[in-house]
């Protein structure tokens, strides 16, 4: 299989306007990945799937990753003039990297039996901007896995045909795989339909004011 640089160059030529970056992987596994931009992600994925030399038709694994805000402190030696005397002092500099959520796709080729080519998508931030384009129209296998990421990480996949919670129950509100998730004290509490059901049943009965106390139960507010 061709190298990641060649794939990147050909993908950028095939999809005009696509901005692809290579994310290195320092470990011994040596599996670097391609970082796609949101606007052209589906087009690039379609190119990877259909290109005759790549034929990456098998999207094996879709993973969500949460990267928190990071502050990297580096100690820098700075020359300072203190009372006509030049001194070298250590100063700590803080650099702030905003956090983001990430979806990682592992692509293989069943037809040509090679791989993996790893594709990443990053959200703008971890709050309102946690949105990504869905690759389910290109790879059907991402359907449940993107739903799982939506459920556990809270990334909204635009263009997903059926984006619902999959593992947690529908009334659940948080996203438990996020790194800053805190379990609520009463996490076993589930809202039962008890009160709603009472409200509903009231609609089925006429008000009966002649009965003592019944109006409390039956009258509409």
């Amino acid at each position, binding site marked *: 299989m061709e190298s990641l640089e060649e794939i990147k160059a050909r993908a950028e030529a095939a999809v005009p306007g696509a901005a692809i970056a290579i994310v290195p992987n320092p470990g011994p596994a040596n599996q670097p990945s391609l970082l796609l931009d949101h606007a052209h992600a589906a087009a690039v994925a379609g190119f990877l799937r259909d290109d005759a030399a790549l034929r990456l038709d098998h999207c*094996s694994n879709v993973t969500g990753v949460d990267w928190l805000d990071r502050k990297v402190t580096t100690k820098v030696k700075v020359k300072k003039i203190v009372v006509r005397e030049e001194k070298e002092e250590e100063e700590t500099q803080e650099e702030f990297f905003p956090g983001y959520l990430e979806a990682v796709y592992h692509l293989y080729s069943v037809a040509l039996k090679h791989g993996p080519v790893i594709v990443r998508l990053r959200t703008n931030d971890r709050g309102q901007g946690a949105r990504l384009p869905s690759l389910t129209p290109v790879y059907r296998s991402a359907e449940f896995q993107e739903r799982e990421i939506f459920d556990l990480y809270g990334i909204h996949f635009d263009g997903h045909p059926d984006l619902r919670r999959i593992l947690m129950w529908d009334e659940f509100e948080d996203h438990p795989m996020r790194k800053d998730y805190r379990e609520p004290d009463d996490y076993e509490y589930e809202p039962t339909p008890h009160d709603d059901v009472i409200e509903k049943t009231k609609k089925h009965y006429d008000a009966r004011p002649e009965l003592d106390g019944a109006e409390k139960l039956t009258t509409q507010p």
Partner: protein
Amino acid sequence: MILSSRAERSAVEGPRDTTFAVTPQDPSTPLGMTSSFQGELLEVSMGPQHPSTHGVFRMNVALDGEIVVKLKPVFGYLHRNHEKIGENTSYLGSMPYTDRLDYFCSMTNNWAYALSVEKLAGLEVPERAEYLRVILAELTRLQNHASLLGFLLSDMGAWGTPLMYAFREREKILDLFESLSGSRMMCDYMRFGGCRCDLPPGWMDRARKLVDGFPRFLDEFEKLVVSNEILIARTQDVGKLSAELAINAGITGPMLRACGVNYDLRKVDGYGFYPRFKFRIPLGEHGDCYDRLMMRVLELRESIGILQQAMAEIPEGPIMNPKVKIRNFRPPAGEAYGRIEGPKGELGFYLISDGSGNPYRYRVRPPSFINLTILEDLCLGHTVADVMVILGSIDIVMGEVDR
């Protein structure tokens, strides 16, 4: 007034408006059944305690008469956020927990996880340990496929007998696992860079005896079951899957190969020592339930061949890479995705290390979860009784699906 026949019913009630468009995907439905309820749909919640759902799994099925027009699987009854627990424990601490994913095949789960960590940290595995892994993985495949055949027949109404025949064989394999690792199902046997302990005396002779006797069970099982007329009627042309959809939907394992796609990670990736062994990859033609069932039978025969070769060739030597520090294990920062051909399909682990003792991200790629993606496509247009057969032929274990 009770309206007994469908004709009477429709004469009185007339056609009804429904919110669903009733368009069964395959118009040539089995037994030539067509919609006779004028589109009146019945919603059935199958599961989560249905005996044929192989655990706690639910499907919301919309039925037109007996025909499935909509099916939405509901997951999460066994969800305990395995991945979060994996992030909060050390690398070694997750090893026994992987047994609980697919509790039928703890050995292959161990191997997939050990393989990914070995990729992440760049570790070598001694020769004898690789042979042991192959032997144990193939024994796992034997017992998984054998018990799946039993379950599938049990789903179809062949209560008891086939399942008990399969479980009799499975029990012998579990006895071997127990004498090796101390536990029948939760083996926790493999380690990063090798295996936990060497074979006890006499183990290999017992295993050889089992493997040599296994074809006899298979012949008997095939004679009893596979050519059975009812089984053929229930499975052939039921739940057909095309090769294109199977590849696009990420279907792996025997289910993919039943569609005629030659993709077996033992051949493709050549992990372990599989390139050293001679074996063939059985392929299906139609992609229906019968092919999926036969795929398991044929794979069992190939696994027996691999086992006989591995048992003849296994060398003496260490079973653990002495350079690996199991305690306080800290792989260098980076990420790795490792995968093996589990009995149910491609089982992968994706790990991100930040250089600390816990993985930053620990992801399981569960084969049976992703194989369920096309459950609705397979069931549409079939009768509700076929849903159980189709689900059984997919081979799911909820410990892995819900994680």
